[in-house]
């Protein structure tokens, strides 16, 4: 069976750093796959390599069995959207224009209008603020906007980079709820997260990345119970000591 996305022995080197050292992973249609790991493990580099923002040194990235193009805009055209880390909105544009620019490559006006409605249904706050400049939104609203903007291209596969980073606990809950909902509505997700607990809880499968290498993989639920993963990424020891 061909996977929706498959990375084979992927290496990325840049600026003298060997950031990815032979990553092999796959994502199947309909899944939520998460990649957990510490800061600097190479999680963002992996997503950026798939999005063709950073060049790959060796290895292959296959999408529906075919090599992915190596220009970022062509990757988007194939149906892969990225929600970049750190709420990178276009601060100089209104909320609505940010969302419209997410649908830049689409020619079906009706489909775009329907997806705009869908984004506004998922995030009613964005509708309220549609004519405000994105730079004036709060951090949480900006995160909603970048997720909404990613949805506007109607991707088959969405790459999400740390969607919960720096958000208040209540918002984190809401964002994870939305991630599940997006997946249930048919979008396949590759999710990079520092919040390993929450990410593993919603993921079908997961990979653990450490200094550019995959050191463990498995079902989300299994990794949650894996003592090594618990110790390194879920803060199990600290919880035990507190008890």
């Amino acid at each position, binding site marked *: 069976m061909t996977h929706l996305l498959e990375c084979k022995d992927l290496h990325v080197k840049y600026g003298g750093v060997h950031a990815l050292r032979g990553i092999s992973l796959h994502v199947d249609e309909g899944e939520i796959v998460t990649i957990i790991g510490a800061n600097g493990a190479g999680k963002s580099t992996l997503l950026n390599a798939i*999005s063709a*923002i950073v060049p790959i040194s060796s290895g292959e990235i296959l999408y529906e069995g075919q090599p992915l193009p190596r*220009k*970022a*805009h062509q990757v*988007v*055209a194939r149906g892969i*959207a*990225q929600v*970049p880390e750190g709420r*990178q909105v*276009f*601060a*100089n*544009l209104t909320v609505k*224009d940010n969302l*419209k*620019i*997410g649908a*830049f*490559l689409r020619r079906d006006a009706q489909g775009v209008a329907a997806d705009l409605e869908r984004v506004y249904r998922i995030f009613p706050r964005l509708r309220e603020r549609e004519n405000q400049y994105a730079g004036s939104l709060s951090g949480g609203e900006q995160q909603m906007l970048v997720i909404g*903007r990613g949805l506007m*291209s109607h991707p088959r596969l969405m790459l999400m980079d740390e969607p919960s980073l720096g958000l208040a606990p209540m918002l984190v809950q809401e964002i994870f709820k939305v991630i599940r909902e997006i997946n249930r509505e048919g979008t396949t997700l590759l999710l990079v997260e520092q919040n390993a607990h929450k990410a593993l809880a919603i993921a079908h499968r997961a990979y653990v990345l450490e200094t550019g290498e995959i050191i463990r993989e498995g079902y989300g639920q299994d990794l949650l119970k894996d003592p090594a993963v618990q110790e390194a990424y879920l803060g199990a020891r600290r919880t035990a000591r507190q008890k």
Partner: protein
Amino acid sequence: MILQQIVNGISIGAVYALIAVGYSLVYSVLNFSNFAHGDVLMLGAYIGFFSLMLLKVPFPLAIAMAMVGAGIIAMIIEKIAYRPLRLRRAPLLYFMISAMGMSIFLQNFTIVTIGPNFRTYPDIFPVKPFAVGNLSIGRLDLVILIATVIVLLLLTWLVYKTRIGIAIQAAAYNMRVASLMGINPDLIATLVFLLAGASAGIGGVLFGMKYTVYPWMGVLTIKAFVAAVVGGLGSLPGAVVGAFVLGITETFAAAYISSAFRDLFSYLLMTIIIVARPAGLMGTVAQEKA
């Protein structure tokens, strides 16, 4: 008298505005100052001149040909002088050097092929100015102002209201994230140079009509660059405001102090603005650009 100076200042400011928007547009997206912009203006002035003199086309068509011609030339310059650097992620300094090289090449190429002599546009509009009360308004100045307003309105509509314009703004804010939206950076660069070139083309014709046409006339656009910096490099409204502020400052300096001090005041204005407000009058404080 004061009113007359303001009228004169607006007239020169209008030409500066046409040129300054080109500097600003390119800077906003690609983060470097295209110092070959003045030479695109010079070529536009020649295209307009020869269209009128050799092809004997009507004036509006001559302007259209200058805009199209200069736009295409600017696109070609981007392709050969800047794109290879961009694809290699070269430091911004290299772009400046490449721009200066391109500028020297274009000037000398023009001297060798067309010749170093000064050429004067024919008088298309009666030289006799309008008299409104005590004011005298040159007919050419009026044409310049109207043409500038039309071009700036078109440009504003294009950048702020159309899909592709919004893509240009997104790319100006963050090219990397824009490419994640499916926006092709090469396409945006081409488009931005086309727009900047076309406005330099009409600017060249108007400049040529007001003064003369010669191979190194592009040097004069350094004033328009000053206007763009005063207004806030990268901001289109800023470029326009800066151009009129500079135009009026210059005419006042020339009229009330000494025309020899005119340029002194232009650069003094720029220095004061840069020191007091590094982002310019309307520029946003450097977001993620250095």
